[in-house]
């Protein structure tokens, strides 16, 4: 009898697992069709030759991958490093890193401030952070554009204060992109930081004060190490979308200050080099994966001396 009961259990379990696969099938199929599948096609395209009018020729070629890193002179076939690509990748990484740093500098005190409010007040402050987060990203970019235009609020204010005499050109610069990206991504930094700081055990902070630590030392040696998972999560959440920004550099950079996203778009538009666009896309995904791997390795365990 015992065996048949076990058998019945096994059957029920198998049926349960089968039902669970059936239930998740629609989501998995949709994502496979419109997210994962197309990605594999991009990978395939990066190994094909470009067609004459966009699209591809169906022949194997590593030319696109070669072109990501090198450029070949059209006259004498000499090979040199693709400076344009390197400089755009490097700029994108620098801008994304600077955005992450700025968001952290502004976001950490803000998250800490919210987490140190009395519990019944916190949700209102959080709500105030969430509203911009839910607001259309394009509208927020447009709002920044209005503020920093030549005749915008920032210039008007600076002239009125007598700091400058004539409007400063802020649009179409790296500064504009940095400002726009910081503005757009700030809530993504504050929310995970808050979640982490809220769980902070303030008895540890109190103990540090009892041992005559200064406020700054408590911050750097106790609080920051304890909320490290939140800092890493927030940084990843900001860095990845900032690195792959497309709309912000297009609007605020004015087509001259490209980032990786715009470089990719260019290959599918005027460049008519789809395989190159595909290989650049794969490169971007690869960089993102490295960032994620860093996150997986470092998240989840508060680091440093505080626990030691």
């Amino acid at each position, binding site marked *: 009898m015992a065996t048949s009961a076990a058998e019945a259990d096994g059957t029920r379990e198998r049926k349960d697992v089968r039902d669970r696969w059936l239930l998740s099938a629609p989501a998995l199929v949709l994502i496979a069709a419109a997210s994962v599948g197309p990605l594999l096609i991009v990978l395939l395209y990066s190994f094909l030759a470009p067609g004459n009018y966009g699209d591809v020729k169906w022949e194997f070629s590593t030319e696109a991958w070669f072109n990501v890193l090198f450029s070949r002179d059209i006259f004498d076939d000499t090979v040199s490093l693709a400076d344009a690509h390197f400089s755009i990748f490097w700029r994108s990484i620098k801008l994304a890193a600077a955005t992450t740093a700025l968001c952290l500098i*502004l976001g950490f005190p803000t998250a800490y401030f919210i987490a140190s409010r009395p519990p019944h007040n916190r949700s209102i402050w959080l709500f105030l952070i*969430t509203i911009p987060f839910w607001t259309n990203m394009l509208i927020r970019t447009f709002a920044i554009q209005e503020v920093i235009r030549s005749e915008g609020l920032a210039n008007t204010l600076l002239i009125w204060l007598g700091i400058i005499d004539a409007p400063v050109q802020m649009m179409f610069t790296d500064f504009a992109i940095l400002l726009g990206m910081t503005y757009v991504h700030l809530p993504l930094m504050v929310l995970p930081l808050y979640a982490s700081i809220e769980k902070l055990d303030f008895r540890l902070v109190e103990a540090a004060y009892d041992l005559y630590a200064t406020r700054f030392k408590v911050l750097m040696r106790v609080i920051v190490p304890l909320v490290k998972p939140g800092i890493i999560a927030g940084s990843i959440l900001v860095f990845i979308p900032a690195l792959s920004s497309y709309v912000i550099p297009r609007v605020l950079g004015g087509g001259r200050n490209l980032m990786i996203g715009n470089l990719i778009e260019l290959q599918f538009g005027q460049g008519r080099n*789809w395989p190159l666009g595909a290989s650049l896309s794969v490169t971007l995904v690869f960089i993102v994966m490295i960032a994620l791997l860093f996150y997986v390795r470092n998240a989840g365990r508060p680091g440093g001396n505080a626990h030691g």
Partner: protein
Amino acid sequence: MARTFSIKRQPGFATIAMICFFLLYLPIATLVVYAFNAGTSIAIWEGFSFRWFAAAWNNQQVIEASWRSLKIATSAAVIATVCATLAALATTRTAGYRGLTFKYAFINIPLLVPEIVTAVALLILFSRIKIWTGYSGLGYLILAHSAFCIPFAYLPIRARLESMDLSLERAAADLYATPVKTFRYVTLPLLWPGILAGLMLAFVISLDDVVITEFVKSGGQDTLPTYMLGQLRRIVTPEMNAISAVFLLLSLAIVTVFFFLSRNPQKENE
């Protein structure tokens, strides 16, 4: 004033936080204020007027793009929420089984892949399918939006399911309710706030999308965001501010409802 020593205080943090909140709202506020400008400039204030709201209302392209946006967002949100609800039921409240981790990872892939990459990937795929089938309707946009909305809808639904009490469903089963009846009369009503929250999150995410829509859309399929992106290249009038203001109001309404729905019922009683 003598201040009691608070262990939570850090010098300057409150000031930075206030500056942060101020800077977050200043550009949006400026944008909304100039929507009411009587003049044609978005920089010089010439008095209060509703003329740009009227202009936007009478702009055929804006109205068409708005309808298209709403149509796509509604369809995509419903499809994504149904899929996400089923997937959440399949991946929660289990001791674990082969493939569970795979499912988690797979469902979250659209969140991890840069939008621009998904956009060009879909461009490649759909441009081929368009040639093969000759179909160039809104279906492509709805399909693309549904897929990237699934992980967003999945999050609140899964969170709700995980905090639900299994004993109620066991009780229903003990009282000879069929699985379908248990689901209909016990699980679904309890899960409903999570489903609604997921639906709204998916709706907003779809409504806000620019990049994927810009690459996937066929000619004459502008949504409101891609229409605005096109307009930003030209000389901008306060009409854009008016459109943005209305858009903002809609987002604000949705986020408010979401906020109350996703509040933890246990915490409210504290």
